[in-house]
Structures are given as C-alpha cells and as structure tokens.
C-alpha cells in the first residue's frame, strides 16, 4: 500500500478516527494499531506478515531473556543469538544470492566451480528497516538503557505502519514511551502534519517523478546516447530525485504519525546545503546515520582507540552502510566513496596546527559546492546498474560536449532548482506558513488542503512509481 494512493487514503481515513476513539484504552488501541499495521504490510504480500510476526516474537523473547538474566555471559549469549537471528533473516532474504554469485564468480576466476545454488529470493519490503529497529531494541535492553515492554507494546513499536516500510528508523526510547501513554487528543500539531504530508506528496509525485521520467531513467539507461550536458544534468537530477523521493516519503510518514498523535524524529535537514561530507551525514537519512553510529561505529571502538582505528571504523561503517542499501558491489563503492571522504576530512582536521577558519560567505559557498559534487559523484555508483554503466556515465561526462541536449528542458531545470533551492530557504518560512495555516478556520484549512491535492494530482504523472527506498 503506497502512501500517495486512493487505497491508502481510504485506509487512513478509517484508521485515523478509530485510533483516536480507542486511544484512551491502550489495551484496545494496541491490538487495533497492530492489526491495521499488518493489513498495511500484508497489502504487498500477506506471506511476509509471518516474517514480521516472527521478528516481533524473536526480539521480544530475547530482550525479556536478556533483561531477566543476571549473568553477563548468559546475557551476551542471548544478545548474540538475537543478533544472529536478525542478521540471519536479513542476510538470507537480502544477501543470499549476492553471496552465492560473488563467491561463485570469485572462484570462477581461478577455474574452480563452487557448487552453490542461487534461490531467487524475493526481498520482503521494509525488512532492512524493521530488522534494524529490532536490533536497536535488543541492544538497548542489553546495555540497560531500556527496560523491555510487553509484547503488545513492542509489536506496536516494530509494526507501526507509518515507519514500517522505509523508516524513519525510530529508536525504542523515542517511540515506545509514546505508545505506552495515551496521546492527548486536545493538542495535535495538525498544521505541521498537513504541511509535511503536502510537501512530501509534492516532492515525490511532482518533482521526483518528473525528473525520473524526463531525464534520469534515460540518461542512466543509455548514457552513451546522451551529451555530456545531459549526463551532467542527469546526475544532478538523480541527486534531486532520490532526495525528493525519500524526503517526500519521510515527510508523509512523519505527518501521518503526527495526525495519530506520535512524534517521529527528523530524517533530513537540508542535506545538499552541507559544507562537508561529515556535515552531509548529519543531515541525510539522519536516523540511519544515528543507528550506524550507535550500533556499529561506537561498538567497533568509535574514535576512542587511536587515529588509524578511527579511520578503519569510519570506513567499515560506511561500507556496511552502503551494503545495507543494496546487495551489490556498486553500493559498497558508494559507501567507500563516502567513507574515504569522511576519513580524508578527519585527517585534514586532525593535522598538527590545523585551525578552523571562520566561515565567510564565499568559503561556505565553495565548501557546499565541493561537497555537493562529491555526493553527486557517489550517486553515480548508487544509481548505476553495474560498474560498466558507472564508468560509461563518467566517460560520457567528459567526452560529448557540444552535442545537442534535448533532455535538458526548462521543466527539468526548474525541478532541480526547486529540489535544491528548497534546502536554502530560511527556516522561518515554513514555520511562518504553518503558523498562518494553523490560525485558519477549519473550512479554510480543508480548502487549502483540497487545492494542494488538486495541484499535486494534476501536475503528477498517471500512476505512482514506488519509493526508491522501498527496495532497501
């Protein structure tokens, strides 16, 4: 069930009032929201509901076991069991065929035939997200940062439909306390919720879809048919497409949760205005960055074990983060480029005698420009189907200047300008718009929403392409 569809609108219009009616009675609300979330998830493939149910029961039992156990060794065994179960599930569904083909092809280089068979496994939507949330829960319980909750509350946490298929990755400490306490129906941040849903729909349905169909798919599908200018604009367009797509999804998810009375963490903070790659990762997919920092980078030792180990940890975190996005070596290279950039920045700032100069307008603009180019270069590997395709894009970028560029249209440039320009808007502007909207009478608010729906629906293409992050 995709957010920008009539099916979801009907589903949500049923869930919203029922959820508020049942909110005062947690023992009734929790089964209701779990059932609604399973209906939402089962709309893709009902068989995967069993997988989600297994993940809930597995993580709950092991978290309770860890909490009750006093012996450190026993606790550790249970933690490792939980991690093996979670990562085993993810590994089987997402990486099994990748592992088999990589192993087979590696040995084929030396003429050895490895008798491993691929299994053509279908990737369950959202598995990467709910697996990471399950791991976060168990690890937090192990660290004694969190006391396990009842099965019903945990099931509501893991399966809560606004975040279920593509995040944001919400920490147990952020959502479970909200799920345990009835939401106050008197104070709902409706203007922010509608603003987020409206902007999310616009970014996904209008901007991302326009760029995908008018330049990105064509350029990345057959780069050698396009001019250097088209390839360059196509790369920038992909940067805006993936941002608009994922930012749009996240905004809708956060807005929907807000209407139900729940606050999710922010997932984006104008990432293309970042002045360094380090800064970029504080602004892009922030909930994944946090997860990787807290459950991977820090357990690896973080920056506490010397310079070289810090570099290694940064690199490993980004390589694994790349692989999390997809079972392919191009994703690993994407992570590697970001890891290399992070290590380079850390080395640069850690040089003896390095002094951070104050920001000037020109210096800030230059840093933003360079950071954006590095991010876009990495996106080439993220989007390309293979290394051959990625090299073809890079080669074409330098070898076909002067050829005609019919794909570089006013519409494409305008969509890119909107996608990037929106990240440089003063923060007070959306706040002022939301405040003004919140003071409108109810009929006027409804009219504004309806006009927004008219514009988005009329400007969007027929049908809605799935969100890019659903495949991760």
């Amino acid at each position, binding site marked *: 069930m995709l957010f920008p569809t009539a099916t979801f609108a009907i589903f949500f*219009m049923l869930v*919203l009032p029922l959820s508020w009616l049942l909110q005062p009675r947690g023992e009734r609300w929790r089964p209701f929201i779990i059932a609604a979330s399973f209906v939402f998830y089962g709309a893709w493939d009902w068989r995967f509901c069993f997988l989600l149910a297994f993940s809930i029961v597995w993580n709950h039992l092991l978290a309770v076991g860890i909490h009750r156990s006093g012996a450190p060794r026993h606790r550790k065994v249970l933690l490792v069991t939980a991690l093996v179960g979670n990562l085993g599930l993810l590994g089987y569904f997402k990486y099994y065929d990748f592992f088999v083909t990589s192993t087979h092809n590696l040995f084929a280089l030396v003429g050895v035939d490895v008798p491993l068979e691929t299994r*053509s496994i279908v990737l369950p939507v959202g598995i990467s997200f709910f697996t990471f949330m399950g791991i976060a829960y168990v690890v937090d319980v192990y660290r004694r940062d969190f006391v*396990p909750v009842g099965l019903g509350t945990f099931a509501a946490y893991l399966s809560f439909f606004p975040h279920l298929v593509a995040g944001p990755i919400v920490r147990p400490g952020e959502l479970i306390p909200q799920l*345990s306490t009835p939401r106050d129906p008197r104070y709902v941040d409706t203007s922010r919720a509608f603003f987020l849903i409206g902007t999310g729909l616009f970014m996904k349905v209008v901007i991302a879809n326009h760029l995908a169909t008018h330049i990105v798919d064509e350029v990345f*599908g057959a780069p050698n048919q396009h001019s250097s200018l088209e390839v360059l604009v196509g790369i920038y367009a992909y940067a805006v497409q993936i941002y608009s797509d994922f930012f749009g999804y996240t905004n809708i998810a956060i807005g929907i949760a807000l209407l139900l009375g729940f606050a999710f963490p922010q997932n984006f903070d104008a990432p293309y205005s970042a002045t360094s790659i380090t800064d970029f990762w504080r602004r892009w997919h922030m909930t994944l960055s946090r997860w990787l920092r807290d459950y991977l980078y820090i357990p690896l030792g973080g920056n506490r074990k010397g310079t070289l180990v810090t570099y290694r940890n940064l690199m490993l975190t980004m390589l694994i983060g790349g692989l999390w996005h997809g079972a392919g070596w191009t994703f690993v290279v994407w992570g590697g480029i970001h890891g290399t950039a992070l290590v380079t920045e850390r080395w640069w700032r850690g040089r003896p005698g390095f002094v951070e100069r104050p920001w000037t307008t020109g210096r800030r603009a230059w840093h933003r420009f360079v950071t954006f180019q590095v991010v876009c270069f990495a996106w080439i590997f993220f989007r390309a189907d293979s290394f051959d395709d990625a090299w073809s894009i890079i080669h074409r970028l330098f070898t076909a200047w002067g050829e005609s560029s019919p794909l570089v249209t006013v519409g494409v440039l305008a969509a890119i300008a909107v996608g990037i320009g929106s990240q440089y808007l003063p923060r007070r502007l959306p706040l002022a718009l939301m405040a003004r909207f919140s003071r409108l009478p109810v009929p006027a608010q409804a009219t504004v929403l*309806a*006009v927004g729906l008219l514009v988005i629906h009329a*400007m969007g293409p027929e049908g809605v392409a799935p969100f890019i992050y659903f495949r991760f």
Partner: protein
Amino acid sequence: MEPANHEPRRRRPRQRTGEGGRRLHSAGSAIVVSLVGLALGVLLNAPGLHKSATIQPQGWKRNVALGVTGPLASVSDTLLLDRPRRALKAALGRSHDDDVDTAVATTSKPPPTRAPAGPPKRTKFTPQHKLGLYIAGDSLVIVPGESLLRATAGNRAIAPDPIDGRIATGLERPDVYNWFTRIEQVMRKDKPRAVVLMFGGNDDHNFMTGVPEGREVGTFGSPSWRAEYRRRVATVMDTITRSGGYLVWIGLPISRDSEQTLRFDVMNSIAQTEAAKRPGRVAYLDTYFFFAGDNGGYTQYVEDPTGKLVKMRADDGIHFERPAGDLIAAKVLDKLEERYDLTSWRKRR
C-alpha cells in the same frame, strides 16, 4: 515491566501553540479537516480519479471505484468543480490526460501474404541517410531497449528515438494506454524504418476494452479471445509495415510462474504466426530459450561463457536485468542487420 518507560505525567501547559507559534488543534479538528479536505480534493480531481478507476484491472475493486467515481465526476461537472483541473491540465499542455480512448483502428483485409521471390533487398543506411529506430512496448521493453540504445550508440547510421516504454500497458486495454493510436501517430509523423516492439506482459487477462460493438470476447485463450487479440496484433503489424517500417517483435520470455509462462505462450504463438504472414516485413524474436535453465525451466541466473554467474531476470521473476537486455539487443540488431545494411558505410572510410 512497563512503568519504567512511561513518560512522566506532567501538567499540560495552558498554551496551545507549537514551534513558531503555530496553534495546536484537537484530534477531532484533524479528522474533520482531513475528511473535508480529502472530499473536496476528490471532487476537484474527479475526472482524473474516474479515469484511474476506469483503467484499473478488471475485478470488484474496479467496479467499486467506477461506482464511486462515476457519480462524483458528474457532481464535479455539474458544480463546475472540475474546471480548475481542466484549466491546470491545459496550462501544462496535457489537456487530454483525463480522456479515455479505446479506439482500436480496424484493419481492412490483411496485406497479401505471398512470400517474396527472394530475400528482401537490404536497404543501406549511412550517417547522412540514417535509419530511424522506434522502440516501444510495456515495461518489459525498457531494459532491452536501453541495451539496444547503448549498442547502437557507436553507429551513426542509426538514429533511435527515446524508448517509448509504458508500465502496465498492452494491447488488451487501450483505455489504459492506446498503443494503436500512438503507433499510428509515430509512423505518420516520425516515419521510422525500423520498429522494435514487445507486448503481452500485461495482456494475459480475460478483460479487453475497445472490442467492436456486437462482438463478445470470452475468457483468456478462448477462440474469441484469440481472434480479437490476433486482430490487434495484426493491426499493429500492418500499421507499421504499411508505413514502410520493418518490425522486430520480441516474444515474451519464460517466467518464474509456470502458469504465466503458459499464458505467455498463447500470445507468443499469435505474434509468431502473424509475423510469419509478413515475411521480410516483420521478424519474430523468440526469447523463450534465452533464459531457460539447464532443465528447460525458468532460471534467474545464467552462467556466461567465462563461467561467471550472471543475474538475467529481476526479482519479480518477469522483468529483465541488464545482461538479459544486452542479449536481446544483440539478437535484435542481428535481425535489423538481416534487413538493413547498417555497417558498410564504415568500410568506405
């Protein structure tokens, strides 16, 4: 165990404002604004929603959607609420987006089926006299089409159009997308001499639109269904060949779902026999065994000549991965080379 995680109970602040001074509202207000806004939005977008309902797959969901959006479209029209959408669409240059076109151009008699006396004359194309190439079809054509574009990029005698691949379309449902009109327009306007088509991936259903009045079409694969589908395939082929185009029709591949493969066989046999009636003008490319495993059944991965395991088919069990597209593109180019001389211009230089 739970109390440890409960939010501490606090007295609610009296102020009902959030960040930036925005006013917080009650849940009831949220529900009313959502419902009224959505209802009004539905009325404003009624023509588009009615079209979306019309082009859905056959079944109860479509019936319900039509039952709801039909009256809504009438109300919207009566109250003039559909005018802003029409004006916006016109301003965007997409006035016909909400139209439903089910016309299937009727063919008169099929063209003569006599076989040519000898092999067709190979027409020569050069960078000065380029071969126009049009690639179209449902979503299955996109990956082979991209491979074909990449494969022809170095040949300046070929001038391909962008791929005209449209998801969830086919020859069964002109209301979803009218390929008959589209192909006729392309052949009239652009006059491509080479056309590559792939259809059928979404056509394995009972329901057809655009059926001539008085004609009944039975269930998928029935004689009446075959006759109507054959008419449509023939219409497309004749539209192209009568405009002087040479058509390569890519057959449907084996699918992970064996029942779907059997359904694909029905459409493949129709396309194949219709192509055989038009020798020298239509070539049928059988892709079935390109992607069959050692046991003749479906396989997602195939070993290439170097022993490397290559992913040929997407995870959905139907669509192609890039290596599969490259394989099909190479075979399509072979077919085009049989009909056209696309390379001798290089030798003169």
